[in-house]
């Protein structure tokens, strides 16, 4: 099945109906394994048990950026290829991305208090992630403010592509500026600096949260297609009544 085949919403709905139960089961299983591995992971020699916060904080932080990346591809799909499901994908991803970013900010704050002695610091990494969260909220507000989805789609796509400038700023903020936030310890040149005892549960949780995103995103896209069908039927009904 190609991307063109998926341009047909009915075909997309039948595909999601077949995929979603399997994806949901795989996500649940992997999340349970990840949670177990996080629970039994050893304490860090410096941080003690607070290192366990990393297993929820880091996957959410990665996904906060990945979801915006997916939305940026969808924005290109809307503006360049005019794929009928591109704006559906972008709209459905925004609340999920906002939730991941919220969790990255709050769990980071809860990790920062015992380790740094403060919940918040206006350093480059924390501030750029906060800006990402505000951009998610702005996009959600834009989708809700414009009633016609096709008009909202173009404005949202432009805003998404402009906002994508923030992604490299977030990624490299710890290298470009002096920050309280530590530099990258997994996705770095020379390989991860984390011990296997922490790296494996972290990667399991990262894959589990990524699968969670795929599952929720497909389900939210299915809902958005149905919402648009409801809208077009309501418009048909209104025009029939006015004749």
């Amino acid at each position, binding site marked *: 099945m190609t991307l063109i085949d998926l341009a047909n919403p*009915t075909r997309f*709905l039948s595909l999601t*109906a077949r995929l979603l139960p399997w994806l949901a089961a795989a996500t649940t299983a992997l999340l349970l394994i990840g*949670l177990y591995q996080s*629970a*039994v992971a050893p*304490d860090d020699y410096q941080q*003690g*048990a*607070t290192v*366990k*916060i990393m297993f*929820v*904080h880091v996957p*959410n932080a990665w996904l906060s950026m990945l979801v915006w990346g997916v939305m940026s591809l969808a924005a290109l799909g809307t503006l360049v290829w005019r794929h009928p499901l591109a704006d559906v994908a972008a709209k459905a991803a925004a*609340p*999920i991305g906002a*939730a991941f970013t*919220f*969790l990255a900010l*709050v*769990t980071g704050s*809860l*990790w920062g*208090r*015992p380790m740094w002695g403060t919940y918040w610091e206006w350093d480059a990494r924390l501030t750029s992630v906060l800006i990402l969260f505000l951009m998610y909220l702005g996009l959600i507000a834009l989708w809700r403010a414009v009633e016609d989805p096709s008009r909202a789609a173009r404005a949202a796509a432009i805003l998404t592509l402009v906002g994508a400038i923030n992604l490299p700023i977030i990624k490299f903020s710890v290298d470009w500026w002096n920050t309280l936030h530590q530099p990258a310890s997994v996705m770095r040149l020379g390989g991860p600096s984390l011990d296997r005892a922490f790296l494996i549960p972290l990667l399991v949780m990262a894959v589990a949260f990524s699968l*969670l995103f795929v599952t*929720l995103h497909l*389900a*939210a896209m*299915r*809902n958005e297609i*149905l*919402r648009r*069908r*409801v809208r*077009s*039927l*309501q418009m*048909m*009904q209104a025009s*029939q009544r006015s004749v």
Partner: protein
Amino acid sequence: MPLGPYASFIVTSYALAIAVVLILVLWIALDHRRQKERLRELEAGGVTRRSGRGVADIR
């Protein structure tokens, strides 16, 4: 599993993550039910799609 002096920070982080994920799942599931219900109501009122496919075709 002793969590040390910062147990409340660790437990709050995990509880919050679980709560937010559950809220997302619940919100999406309820939204799906609501959209199908609205489609069913419209079809019951005689408004159908040109393709003739109805809400019964959607799982």
